[in-house]
């Protein structure tokens, strides 16, 4: 049995951690928050230099041809460091093209995305309460698109978007160059990862795969997002753990009080449950297993549970200081909301998980 990340992935993770510890983290997130920047351009250049956008792109298209393990550890470390770069959005677009693109689409886009010449994103939300698999209002018509998508993470910096569109079989994808597409910043609860409203107006767009591909892509994105959430959650916990070991009240380190230590234990429990499911999702994705449907949904749900609890109770355990603008707690508290909205809420994915279990039961019957 070898239910663990590959050694290569562990090496990459260590390198990524070291790089991001030095170059990213809350102070860098704060710089973006305090400015009108869409991201940290210098950091992004270095991330491209590291070859991370190229990770999953096949060597034939100028990439490194790495596996899902490597993609997952990158997501985890970006989540942990809050690095304000459009890496995960770009990786999402790359996965869409890998999954559903024609040879021409791959040849056109993958080299650009791998090299940082293009920045990708996924645009499915339409500013309402719909889920990622509800029918979009936008549709491809004569090779063009009209209508709006919002909020789109990294939509201010992206140069190409995977846009969901209505089709007879359900939501499907189109690939759209954002040259000349009008966009504006959308105010959201996350002040470090700005979102945009993309307004398409007879914008040229190409169909990308089928409705089935979009459903499958959401599962792959759910695995990636689970790793990201796990990294973000663990960072918040580690910060809180350090505080609990240091802060004194009533003559004791507050970490001695069961009221505090049991919350930290619960954060750990939720994180390890999420990690087990995230690993399972990573395996199912890489193995192309039918298990991906329940595994991805479970990874998503478990990671959202860990992040929500950890983000909320981190503020709580810091007390007054944790509620100030100057403190880093807010980054995790706000990012939780971004991660929820980026791919559908817990109840949506819990429902998908049970649907996958029902399907599996029917198949076994």
């Amino acid at each position, binding site marked *: 049995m070898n239910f663990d990340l590959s050694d290569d992935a562990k090496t990459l993770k260590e390198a990524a951690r070291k790089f991001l510890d030095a170059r990213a983290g809350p102070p860098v997130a704060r710089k973006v928050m305090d400015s009108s920047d869409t991201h940290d351009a210098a950091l992004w250049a270095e991330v491209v230099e590291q070859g991370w956008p190229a990770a999953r792109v096949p060597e034939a298209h100028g990439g490194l041809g790495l596996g899902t393990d490597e993609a997952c550890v990158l997501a985890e470390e970006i989540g942990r460091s809050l690095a304000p770069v459009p890496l995960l959005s770009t990786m999402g677009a790359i996965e869409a093209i890998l999954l559903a693109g024609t040879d021409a689409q791959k040849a056109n886009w993958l080299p650009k995305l791998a090299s940082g010449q293009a920045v990708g994103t996924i645009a499915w939300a339409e500013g*309402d309460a719909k889920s990622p698999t509800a029918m979009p209002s936008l549709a491809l018509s004569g090779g063009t698109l009209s209508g709006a998508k919002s909020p789109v993470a990294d939509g201010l910096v992206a140069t190409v978007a995977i846009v969901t569109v209505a089709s007879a079989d359900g939501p499907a994808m189109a690939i759209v160059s954002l040259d000349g597409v009008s966009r504006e910043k959308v105010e959201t609860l996350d002040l470090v990862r700005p979102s945009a409203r993309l307004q398409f107006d007879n914008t040229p767009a190409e169909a990308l795969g089928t409705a089935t591909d979009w459903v499958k892509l959401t599962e792959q994105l759910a695995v990636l997002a689970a790793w990201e959430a796990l990294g973000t959650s663990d960072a918040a916990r580690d910060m809180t753990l350090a505080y609990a070991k240091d802060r004194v009240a009533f003559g004791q380190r507050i970490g001695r009080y069961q009221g505090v230590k049991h919350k930290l234990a619960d954060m750990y429990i939720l994180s390890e449950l999420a990690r087990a499911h995230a690993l399972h999702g990573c395996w199912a994705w890489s193995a192309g297993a039918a298990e991906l449907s329940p595994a991805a949904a479970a990874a998503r749900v478990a990671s959202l549970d860990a992040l929500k609890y950890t983000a909320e109770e981190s503020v709580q355990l810091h007390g007054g200081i944790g509620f100030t603008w100057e403190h880093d707690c807010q980054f995790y508290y706000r990012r939780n909301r971004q991660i929820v909205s980026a791919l559908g809420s817990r109840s949506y994915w819990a429902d998908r998980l049970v649907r996958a279990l029902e399907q599996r039961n029917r198949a076994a019957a």
Partner: protein
Amino acid sequence: MDFNDTPQEADYRAQVKAWIAANAGEYLNPPAKPWALDDFVARSKAWQAKKHAAGYVGITWPKAVGGQGLSPMHQIIFNQEESRTHVPTGLYSIGLGMCIPTVFTHGSPEVAARYVPRALKGEEVWCQLFSEPVAGSDLASIRTRAVRDGDEWVINGQKVWTSFAHKSDFGIVVCRTDFDAPKHKGLTMFIVDMHAPGMEVRGIKQMSGGSDFNEVFFTDVRVKDTHRLGDVGEGWKVALTTLMHERLAVGGKPRHAPGYQTLMTVAAGIETDSGPAMERADVRQRIADTYIADEGIKLTQMRALSALSRGAMPGPEQSISKVVVAKTMQDMASFALDLSEASGFAVEPGSDLEKLQGSYMWSAGLRIAGGTDEILRNIIAERVLGLPGDLRPDKDTPFSQLKPL
């Protein structure tokens, strides 16, 4: 059982209603836009002067200090009627609610004569300077130092979480005057002039974006010994009487905070993949949860009012209020934002969802302010249920020799 006023209460309410109708003027309607801070202060002072002239300030205080000598029910009735309008309050709630009772209880007659009347009229605004960066839940571990110098004391240190410090004229400040006494024994309380040399006030911006509190820095600030409140070394006891008032003040759901009705409104507009949100069992159960908590606290407050109305002390059940309300706000807001998917993330000014977003941010602070969830559970367990306290290794050691365990 009934929810009616007694005849005496009804009389007083009628009188208050009539006075407010005649005097609240423009405040009977909500303001067209929020007031700027200076405007708010000016309006607050004007309204306070009117109330004072009409005998509606210090309603429960002894007549000897300028109060009306009436019962808590009278104060509550006035507050209820006043809160139906949009008059500016808040500026005086800490000063009159907590500082001035401390001044007239523990200050000399001369000091009381100097400060209480002007505070009652609203001419001078007061703030409370207790918390410090190292002293939150454990207030008695403050380090702001006051050193005697002849007839004066010299104060150095830093206070935080002070409401309206920048608009206050005076404050009450608790300082450590003996570092060799055990932590609770070396404290002393003073009145301090907020305009004195060496005072510096800076705003604290909260995680939620607003800036409702201040830090106050003391650099060689001088206070006359006549402005001491209580004996040297008795500052902890004085502070406790001040704080007793706070526990009563921080209570029910903040006015205008979203509740179960907001969740119903939001849910009514959402169609989810598994049907209309209002038909989903999880949504209905969350509405019920929120109703149980919020209405349960309201009804618990009515139990307290009923006790006051018959001249008794409210029961200990009041102590559950804040811990229930703050967490319910956070849970409900988070649920509603989840349910709203993308629309719960984008900020749309003026919308119900924006209120819920505000509530989600603000509730994180409310779970801490005026006693964290953890401290409040300790208080319920120890004071109401009679359980023994956490071990306190710091209780009897000289403050200067404390080593955190």
